[in-house]
């Protein structure tokens, strides 16, 4: 049985590796001009979608910048939509948004219920231009907000923009973006201690902002699942679906745990060796160095970048470790202040909110000595 047959369907199709931008943190080797073969992809998807899984299949079209090959994407999608496959599916594209104008915009508007675009946008004009090739003015932000109002926007923070993190998130909120997926870039050098100071300062600014705007949906960078610390099994939970829920197809159609394991990203030898990794085994994705860390369950990592940089999916970037601890500390402080020092009448809270607060406090209590130690460093 191949990997696809017994996993939930989250299928990545690499459409191209070319891109019209050159972002500062990009990990991809963009030298290949190859693009996906539409007929081969039709055949592959036809086989997969002919089997009903009971769950919706997500077809992720992934670049490079996928809209560089819009005619091929259009051909594939319009063919898929008239095939009447037994399996329900939806198509998702991650895009830098710079090519979404004119014909592409019209086509997306027409198909917005079955073709969703996730935009990457790194904050203010200045931040976006620093990280992403002076591209801010090429993006019609309103179009994305209006067409897919609930869809998350991806904001990547690089060493060049970390000093403006709060400003960037506040700006994205001001644009009407409801779900801001912000995180530190992987596979860049975070070792310099100036980043720790900058990160803490920016998170504190965000804390003040969210305190003043309690009804906003907090950016993922200021959203830590403390409640999960009271569930012992979460320690052994993986951070993403790589190798379990995800199947990624490269341009040649071969299967990988996620797109970071493609030859074009991690090189031929590593890419080949990745097939021997058991992603369902916690011993393979938790390192000895981290296994006893009290905040392991709330410390995100990227298994692909671990593998690329340190040859093992479990070996995390320990320079990000310090930054993650700062994040956990600042968000815990915010949550503690919001709940414990709250002036609001707890009698007026819904049962749901009371329960949520109990679970958050449960989690914070479990790591409280660790947090207070961090405060003294």
């Amino acid at each position, binding site marked *: 049985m191949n990997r696809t047959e017994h996993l939930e369907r989250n299928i990545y199709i690499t459409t191209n590796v070319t891109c019209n931008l050159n972002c500062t943190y990009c990990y991809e080797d963009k030298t290949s001009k190859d693009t996906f073969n539409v007929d081969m992809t039709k055949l592959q998807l036809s086989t997969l979608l002919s089997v009903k899984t009971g769950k919706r299949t997500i077809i992720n079209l992934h670049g490079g910048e996928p809209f560089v090959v819009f005619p091929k994407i259009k051909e594939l999608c319009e063919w898929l939509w008239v095939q009447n496959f037994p399996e329900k599916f939806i198509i998702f594209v991650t895009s830098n948004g710079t090519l979404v104008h004119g014909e592409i915009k019209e086509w997306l508007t027409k198909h917005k219920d079955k073709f969703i675009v996730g935009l990457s946008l790194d904050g203010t004009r200045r931040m976006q231009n620093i990280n992403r090739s002076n591209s801010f003015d090429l993006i019609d932000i309103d179009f994305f907000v209006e067409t897919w109002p609930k*869809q998350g926007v991806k904001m990547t923070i690089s060493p060049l923009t970390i000093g403006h993190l709060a400003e960037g998130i506040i700006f994205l909120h001001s644009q009407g973006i409801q779900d801001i997926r912000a995180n530190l870039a992987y596979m860049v050098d975070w070792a310099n201690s100036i980043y720790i100071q900058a990160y803490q300062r920016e998170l504190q600014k965000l804390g003040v902002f969210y305190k003043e705007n309690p009804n906003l949906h907090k950016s993922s960078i200021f959203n830590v699942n403390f*409640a999960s610390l009271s569930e012992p099994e979460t320690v052994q939970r993986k*951070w*993403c679906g790589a190798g379990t829920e*995800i199947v990624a197809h490269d341009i040649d159609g071969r299967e990988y745990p996620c797109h970071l394991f493609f030859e074009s990203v991690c090189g031929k030898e590593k890419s080949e060796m990745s097939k021997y990794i058991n992603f369902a085994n916690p011993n393979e994705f938790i390192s000895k160095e981290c296994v006893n860390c009290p905040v392991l369950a709330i410390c995100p990592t990227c298994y*692909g970048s671990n593998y690329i940089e340190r040859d093992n999916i479990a070996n995390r970037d320990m320079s990000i470790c310090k930054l993650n601890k700062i994040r956990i500390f600042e968000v815990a402080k915010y949550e503690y202040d919001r709940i*414990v020092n709250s002036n609001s009448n707890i*009698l007026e809270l819904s049962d749901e909110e009371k329960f949520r607060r109990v679970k958050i406090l449960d989690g914070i209590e479990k790591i*409280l000595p660790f947090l*207070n130690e961090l405060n003294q460093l």
Partner: protein
Amino acid sequence: MKQVLDLQKLIVVKEELTLLLSKPIASYEGAYAYEDFQMGCSSCTGGCTSCYGSCSGAMKG
């Protein structure tokens, strides 16, 4: 140095909240606590750059 997070205060507030629940706390388990965090595939919280939130749970369009 003063502790920023006070264990005793935390426990008092937690107990107050628990007592104010209209049903035993166990009956709420699994109902609310994690829904905001299960944004992506598996237990992803959108914590990495690599998937760009393009997994099923992250997709909200």
